[in-house]
């Protein structure tokens, strides 16, 4: 019989309890067990950044963790950013206004990488923004409008 483990985890300030197999990736747990499909999965080897979430406040790749490791921890996914569809987080609003996305596949991971970046670095230079984006791949935009969106967000949030 397959061995399972209890997991109690807080996601976007809501508590969930599940039984999981040890090999279940945290990314798949969020998407398939909790139905939080905002976290995207691109490469499953840490390179693309689409699956980035906040784990105890720090950005991490959810494809490189097992769900069982999240037991007792607090996560934020992209669903935790906006109050509702009319009240976007200023970072999301900036992506909307500056056209920081096209297909949107990369967007959740980029937002979840930029949240801690802007917290630690509220007035970033363009160079710093590009560095901070280097761990997230976007195949559509050419990055220019993403950089603009992050600049705009820094102004709005600052």
């Amino acid at each position, binding site marked *: 019989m397959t061995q399972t483990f209890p997991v109690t985890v807080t996601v976007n300030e809501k508590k969930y309890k599940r039984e999981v197999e040890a090999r279940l990736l945290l990314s798949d747990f969020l998407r398939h067990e909790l139905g939080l499909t905002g976290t995207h999965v691109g490469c*499953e080897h840490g390179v693309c950044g689409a699956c*980035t979430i906040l*784990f105890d406040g720090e*950005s991490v790749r959810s494809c*490189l*963790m*097992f769900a069982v490791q999240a037991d007792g921890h607090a996560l934020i996914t992209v669903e935790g950013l906006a109050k509702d569809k009319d009240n976007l987080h200023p970072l999301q609003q900036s992506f909307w206004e500056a056209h920081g996305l096209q297909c949107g596949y990369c967007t959740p991971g980029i937002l979840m990488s930029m949240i801690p970046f802007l917290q630690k670095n509220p007035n970033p230079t363009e160079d710093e923004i590009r560095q901070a984006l280097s*761990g997230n791949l976007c195949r559509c935009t050419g990055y220019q409008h993403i950089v603009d969106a992050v600049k705009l967000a820094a102004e709005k949030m600052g």
Partner: protein
Amino acid sequence: MKPAPFEYHVPDSIEQALDLMSQHADEAKILAGGQSLVSAMNFRVIQPSVVIDLNRVAELSYIRAEGDVIRIGSMARERHLEFDSSIAKRTPLLTEAMPHIAHPQIRNRGTIGGSIVHADPAAELPVLMLALNARLKAKNISGERWIDAQDFFAGMFTTALAPDEILVEIEMPFMPARTGWSFMEVAPRAGDYALMGVAVLVTLEKNGKCKKAKLVYLNAGDGPVDAKEAAKILEGEKLNDKLIESASAMASRKEINPFGNVHTSPDFQRHLANVLTKKALKQAMQRAEENLQ
């Protein structure tokens, strides 16, 4: 893809972890930050039947200055090394190199122990361990031993650890007085594995002559490459451009053995090594001279 099934253990002490390793050594993998292991498992490049997760062994996660060394628990995250003030003060070479390792999202999870045991020839930390003369403490159920960094790396993705051993601590001596440092690499994008990189340390005598030099290269062979002949050219001498030229030529033409990859040829890697060595030696020398006063 998804990992194959495995038996999962999550010890909360070193003792429990060692006990598990003694029972499962041949089939078990330690899970540290998972930033190399989990991707390899996702692609089923490896399929360990037992995984021993060290993330709840709190006693393996520390950084402290003690006497004239820095002690780092193997589960200390790369991100913690990056911002630690005693590391910045005592081994600034390490602080300078940390931002070159992957991205913050990876460094938030990746550990010093994981990177060292993974022993990727393109990785920064193994090179830094050699440059900084670190000692590594390994434990198994029956005892512990210290291994010098220069004896630890045994080839591509291979180390001196026995299958039942866990790396528990890294000990780095403080950089000596009148020492300058430099870490330089060239990567296609910020955070990518570098095409070539070098860590340099230069220690001067009070009279300004070079007492000791160290040049260690990444992605330049099947492990970190310590260019000892290049260092000999510099030691005992008052450094000047000509000596720096010949040390750089020695290291980049004779001592490293780069293989090339999809982004670069071995010739270009040697060219990069030559350019980086000259720049790094100059920076290290300048910093050492600032420390002379």
